Every structure is written in C-alpha cells, then in structure tokens.
C-alpha cells in the first residue's frame, strides 16, 4: 500500500518535476503566478477603470466564477502540454489512474494562484460567504479541469499548436457564456450598482478614494 502510494506520487510528479526543471523556479513563478494574476487584473480593469475611476476590488472579486472557470479549463487543457512535447502520452495508455494523478497535480499547482487571489479578495470584501465560495471554487475548478483535459484529449492532439489554440481561445469563448461569465463579468456594470453620472477626471485617480483602490 505504502509502496504503491509512493510509486503513484513519484509518477504523478514526474511531469511537474520536468516542468520545474524546464522553466526553473523563476519561470514557474512568472508563468503560473504573476502573469495569470496580471492577466485577470487587466481583464477586470479594462472597462472598469474608465474615465479615472478606481479599480474596485469588490466588484472584480464578485466575478470570480468566470475567472475560476477559465483557469480550471485552461489548467486542464495545459496539463497535457508537457506530455505532448515530451511524447509521454503513450505512457498513460491503459493507466488511467496515473494520468489522473498527474493531471490533478498540475491543475492544483496552476490554478492555486488565481483561486488564492479571488479567495483573498472574497475574504476581505465579503467574509460572510467565503467558505461557501471556497467550496464552490474547488468544485468548479475540478469540474472544468476534467472538462478541459477531456477536450484537449479528444481534440487538441492533432498538432503541436492544438493545446496552445485551446488555451488562447478559452477565455474569449467563456466570455460568451451565460450569466456571470458573460462580458459583463469583467466590467460588470449590470452586476453592481449602475454607473451614475460621473465627473470626468484625470487627476490623481490611481490612489483611489473610499472603498475603491
């Protein structure tokens, strides 16, 4: 039992170790932590900080379903990338547990930063619901990751561009989705209080006032 568990751990982490070796810690930090966080902030602020308005973290945080869904899906898709590049895929034939374990490890690693960001914002802005949010985030990440890795498995392996195409297109396709995942998810005029008549100002807006950043 212990031996098989150890074996499982080792096999599951082989792609991760290879990833870390290939990208180094700096590459992992920028590729899996800093850039996705900045990317989400850019999408969140794109239509929100118009006319000198501040970046409203609470409003940004309210649209976590879209960002978590995209992150989970992209993590599921991208979890195959290393296998594809290194030709590891045949190693999983007939060994579903092995494939599942290494997918899970990758998804956990790569969706943790954004989940952490949104959970942090939820804790700070609406502490009464964050436990429920955290549970939902976990479930959503899991479901979307399974979906993403399935989509990649069935569709993305015909060329080496396949995975990259899915990763690039996913955020935009998801933005066409229903409810909170729709475009208003990022800038969300409808989701929060409607924008009243605002004065146009360019002055010191970046430090913000009141609850906005």
């Amino acid at each position: 039992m212990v031996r098989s568990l150890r074996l499982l751990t080792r096999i599951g982490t082989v792609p991760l170790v290879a990833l870390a070796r290939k990208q180094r810690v700096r590459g992992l930090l920028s590729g899996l932590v800093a850039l996705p966080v900045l990317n989400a902030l850019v999408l969140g602020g794109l239509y929100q900080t118009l006319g000198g308005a501040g970046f409203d973290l609470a409003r940004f945080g309210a649209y976590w379903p879209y960002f978590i869904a995209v992150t989970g899906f992209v993590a599921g898709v991208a979890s195959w990338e290393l296998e594809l590049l290194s030709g590891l895929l045949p190693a999983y034939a007939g060994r579903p547990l092995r494939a599942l374990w290494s997918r899970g490890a990758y998804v956990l690693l790569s969706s943790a930063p954004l989940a952490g960001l949104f959970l942090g914002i939820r804790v700070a802005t609406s502490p009464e619901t964050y436990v429920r949010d955290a549970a939902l985030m976990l479930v959503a990440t899991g479901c979307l990751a399974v979906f993403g890795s399935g989509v990649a498995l069935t569709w993305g392996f015909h060329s080496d561009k396949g995975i990259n195409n899915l990763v690039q297109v996913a955020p935009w396709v998801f933005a066409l989705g229903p409810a909170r995942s729709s475009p208003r998810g990022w800038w969300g005029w409808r989701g929060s209080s409607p924008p009243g008549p605002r004065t146009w100002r360019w002055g010191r807006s970046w430090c913000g006032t009141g609850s906005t950043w």
Partner: protein
Amino acid sequence: MVGWSVRYLRLLIWLQWVDRRATSSFIVGITIQTAVLSLGLVQLRTLDAPAVLQAAVRASFLVGTALCALSAMSAFQNEFRYQTVWQTARDQRVFARLMLARAFAMVIITAPALLVPFIVATVLLGATVSVGVVAAMAFLSVVVLVAFTHLLTTGLALTYDPARLVPWIRQVVMVVALGTVAFLSPEPVRNVFPFVWIERMAVPGELWRSAGLTIGITGAWWLVGQALLRRPAREILTRRLTDNVESR
C-alpha cells in the same frame, strides 16, 4: 531590395498574412475576442462619449499589443530561419528598414480587428461624437502600434528567449501604460506613454493638444529606443552571422 515601393509592401503584407493564417488561433481568437470586446462596449453605452472611446482604445490595444508581438518575436529570427539574412543584411539600413516594413505589415493585417471597437463606439454614440475625432484616434492608435511593434522587434532581437519576455512587456503596457489596473499605474508614469494621450483626444477641447502629445511622445520613444537599441541589435546580427562559422 526594392525599398519602399508599394508593391514590395504589399508583398510583405501578404507574407505576413500567410504567416499568421498558419496559426489558426490567430483568426479564431481575434474574431471571438473582437466580438466579446464589442459586446462589452455595447454595455458601456450609457457612459459619456470620452469613456466609451477610452474603452475602444483599450480594447484595440488589448488585441493589438498581443498580436503584433507575434510579428515582433519572429521578424528578426525568420531572416535566419529562412536563410534570407545573407541578402537582407548586406546593407544595415536596408535591414533596419525591412524590420520597420514588417512591423507595418503586421499592423496592417491586424487593422480590421483594431478598427472594429472604434466603429462600434461610433455607432453606439451616434451624434454625440464627431466621426473625425474617432478617425483621428483610430489612425493614431495604428501609428503608435507600428512604432511599438518596430521597437519591440528591435528590442527582442537582443534577447535569447523572446517568448518569455513578451508576455511581461505586454502586461506592463496594459497595466502600467494604459492604466487598466489603476492602483498599479501612477498617473505621472502613465503620462510618459502615448496610449493615455490617445484616450484623452476624446475629451472635449483636448483634441489637438492630446494628438500633438501622442505624436511627440511616440516619436521620442521611437528615437530614444532606436538610438539605444540599434547598435546592440547590429552587433547581435553580426555575431549570429559569424556564429559557428568554424564548424560549418
């Protein structure tokens, strides 16, 4: 090398199009992306005209900076990959001009996607905005993007691994220079870049001053960038030409 003939530019534009078409995510991604960003603009229509046009500028650069980086990453390397460098690098000025022409070609094939947000904004705002102002903003956006792509091409020629650097440059442009994430982008820093001045052209009474500043700041960035990067880029070019010459 025909130099600046229209025919030659058309050839480059066609080549660039063939290059980009090979990446299927280019067409699919750009189409969905433009549609989503335009849908977002529609939801902003209750705002005043400058804010909607600012959103159009941002949407345009969100698409443009990402796409033009593709060309900036590959323009220099492709000369080596396709072994054409032996013809193009004979004259340094010709080579530099080729890089500018490639940047221009890339912006031209991206232009439809860049212009859609402006067109949508014009339709949404109707009579509250003058078409001339929007056209000027769109035109200057394209000019700024050509300068940006050209500088990026020259700058990325110096790096060993441009694919690692490009996302960072793009995020810095979107976050700091355009000020999408307001708390990471102090006003004085934002003002050093031309992007916010394009947005300010839409503010009533600010058109000429902002347009002048956009052109001036872009020109200054381009001149300083060229002055700083040209010589190192030339050295890299020479070094790569003589690399491994012994073992050939």
